């Protein structure tokens, strides 16, 4: 049996497909505005200080309602609240293809978001992370209908409903655990950058370290009650951990806060850090050292020091030689997009760990991804859409089936 799948006819149709997407661009734009302007969370307050409850499901609810409105064959939510829309394929014997985007944004608050559309760009907080991605997959049922494109496989359109800080991985993993059918392949859609092609994940652990003053029961705390000083010492010790050049391994301290007022010692401090390596063993080794450092502070300073791991991923890759990667590169090259390969964690690693052939791609070009001034190019959206359909079509043709 010939195991190579010919995707030449798919590639050939791409330039034409891109030009047809130019006329359908506004459908995507309106969806991305509608979902992206929904705040990441709705906060109900007891009074000015006390938060009564936080509802992170606003976007997931909208996503599900909208999928139904725009005409998917079925729509449901799995038990961690990830909305899933089904576009039925013609061959029920084939496994589904998953197209997914995360719905939560790096802005987790309830503040208002307003996008503006000017001079060929759409701008506003979270537009690339991930209004463009979510708006794109939300538009798929409509775009496929307009272009009369159908697949042999069922298409699962999935929004990952992160429920606030540090839990996005949970939503993805739970979704994959609940899947009862073997998946043919998956495409994870990010707003940008057009050309990104992620097919491997580094091993990674994210952890929070918290130190609090402890009522020492008569014993004087050695840090004079100032937790910032304790944290400072912890950081020094972490920075002293030796890291190999190979496999490439690093520690990033990405968050730090402590104390309330200028004139008072900080009663608590916390930091968030991430350990990354190409090898699982390295991450594990450093993680043990980190635990020791935190434990030592507990006794040396007499404070309440805790380490909490909030996310982890194993190193995983489908490898450059994988036909899905090759097909994705071919699709990009046909559209004149220069592929950029780097590691991606979060959603992708969960798929790869499960043995599902998956890539992450970006839809358009952008700038200031994580700032208020974030902006995405409208002009390159049709390229991103053609690329997405090209890769889905390649999976539907079977590029992953014998990998």
């Amino acid at each position, binding site marked *: 049996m010939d195991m190579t799948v010919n995707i030449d006819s798919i590639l050939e149709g791409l330039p034409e497909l891109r030009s047809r997407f130019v006329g359908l661009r*506004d459908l995507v734009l*309106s969806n991305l505005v509608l979902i992206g302007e929904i705040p990441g969370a709705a906060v109900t307050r007891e009074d000015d200080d006390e938060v009564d409850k936080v509802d992170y499901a606003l976007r997931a609810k909208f996503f599900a309602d909208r999928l139904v409105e725009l005409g998917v064959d079925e729509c449901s939510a799995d038990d961690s609240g990830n909305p899933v829309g089904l576009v039925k394929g013609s061959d029920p014997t084939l496994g589904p293809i998953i197209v997914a985007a995360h719905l939560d944004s790096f802005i987790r608050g309830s503040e*208002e978001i307003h996008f503006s559309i000017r001079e060929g760009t759409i701008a506003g907080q979270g537009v690339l992370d991930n209004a463009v991605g979510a708006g794109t997959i939300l538009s798929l049922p409509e775009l496929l209908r307009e272009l009369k494109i159908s697949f042999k496989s069922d298409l699962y359109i999935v929004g990952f409903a992160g429920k606030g800080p540090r839990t996005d991985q949970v939503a993805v993993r739970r979704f994959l655990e609940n899947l009862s059918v073997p998946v043919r392949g998956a495409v994870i859609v990010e707003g940008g950058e057009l050309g990104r092609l992620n097919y491997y994940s580094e091993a990674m652990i994210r952890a929070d370290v918290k130190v609090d003053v402890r009522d020492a029961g008569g014993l004087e705390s050695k840090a004079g009650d100032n937790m910032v000083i304790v944290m400072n010492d912890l950081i020094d010790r972490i920075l002293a951990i030796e890291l190999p050049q190979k496999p490439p391994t690093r520690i990033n301290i990405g968050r730090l806060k402590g104390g309330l007022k200028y004139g008072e010692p900080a009663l608590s401090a916390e930091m968030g850090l991430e350990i990354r390596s190409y090898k699982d063993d390295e991450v594990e080794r450093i993680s043990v050292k980190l635990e020791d450092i935190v434990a030592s502070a507990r006794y040396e300073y007499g404070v309440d020091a805790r380490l909490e791991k909030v996310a982890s991923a194993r190193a995983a890759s489908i490898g450059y030689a994988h036909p899905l990667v090759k097909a994705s590169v071919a699709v990009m090259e046909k559209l004149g997009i220069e592929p950029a390969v780097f590691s991606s964690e979060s959603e992708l690693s969960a798929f790869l760990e499960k043995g599902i052939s998956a890539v992450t791609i970006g839809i358009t070009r952008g700038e200031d991804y994580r700032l208020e001034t974030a902006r995405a190019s409208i002009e390159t959206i049709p390229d991103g859409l053609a690329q997405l359909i090209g890769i889905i079509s390649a999976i539907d043709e079977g590029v992953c089936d014998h990998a």
Partner: protein
Amino acid sequence: MLDSNWLTTNTYHHSRFRDIAQLVERKLERGLRISVCFPTLNEEKTIAKEIILLRSELMSRYKLVDEIAVIDSGSTDRTREIAAEYGAQVYLASDILPDLEPLRGKGENLWKALHVLSGDIIVYVDADIKNIHPRFVYGLLGPLLMHEDVRFVKAFYDRPISLDAKKVKPSGGGRVTELVIRPLFSLYYPELTQIIQPLSGEYAGFREIFETISFPIGYGIETSMLLDIYRRWGMPAMAQVDLDKRVHRNQSTLALGRMAFGIMQTFLERLASEGRISMEDRLHDSMIQYELENGVYSRREHSMERHERPPIVSIAEYTAKHHPKGEGKA
């Protein structure tokens, strides 16, 4: 006499009309055409998004709206170009009914829109809304399509009554509404105080209403429209819709002062013409304001000369186009 029921019976929330397919069905049953009009002056920051959202949602996905037009007062930025690029019909106000001496102001655009638009229902939406959403249009259309008595619908924003029973919110009007219009309405037309935001720039109504009232060109347009519709058709022909939040530019106090001037000017003229008050002298037609700059007060005088377009049915060119057989005129 205050019909205090109106506020309860004729006030809606947009969510009641979110089944757009149902509105489309009603529209087709009643054989109506619907036009959306944006009056613009230098709105390049917001116009593209407004057109994209309304077009894709209410013209492509649902066939609720038949045309979207921008009537521009002569923007010096790229408003007209952008609007055309995103698929709106674009008109320069001075090109419409060119035989008339052109006037400049929002009222002029709204009035002239009646000539170029083909809808039986016209929806007016200001072009400076940052959080544009299809609800701004389908919310206004809801009462017009679903309730036959309703001929004119006005928008208001934010909830007038807090759901939190411990807190009472003000009625949601802006400064000019609460300091100028509601006092005047209370004095002369108490029923109209039930209109939560008389100055909101979003409203919709049947052509037969708009074509038979006159349009002041300046700030008085929203007030005069309410007064004229109220006097001719009464409260039952009106409804208001809560469109939740609207985000737009804020105006300076001085600009609001001029707005208040224009409104009072129109209001007093209307009262005098109705014989509710008598004025021995004509009103001054300039607004005088002072600004403190480097310790010196300088006087700024704005000419606020009042221009008003007559009911457009009195314009021959209009009737020839819209009522060729003389039918349907009020």
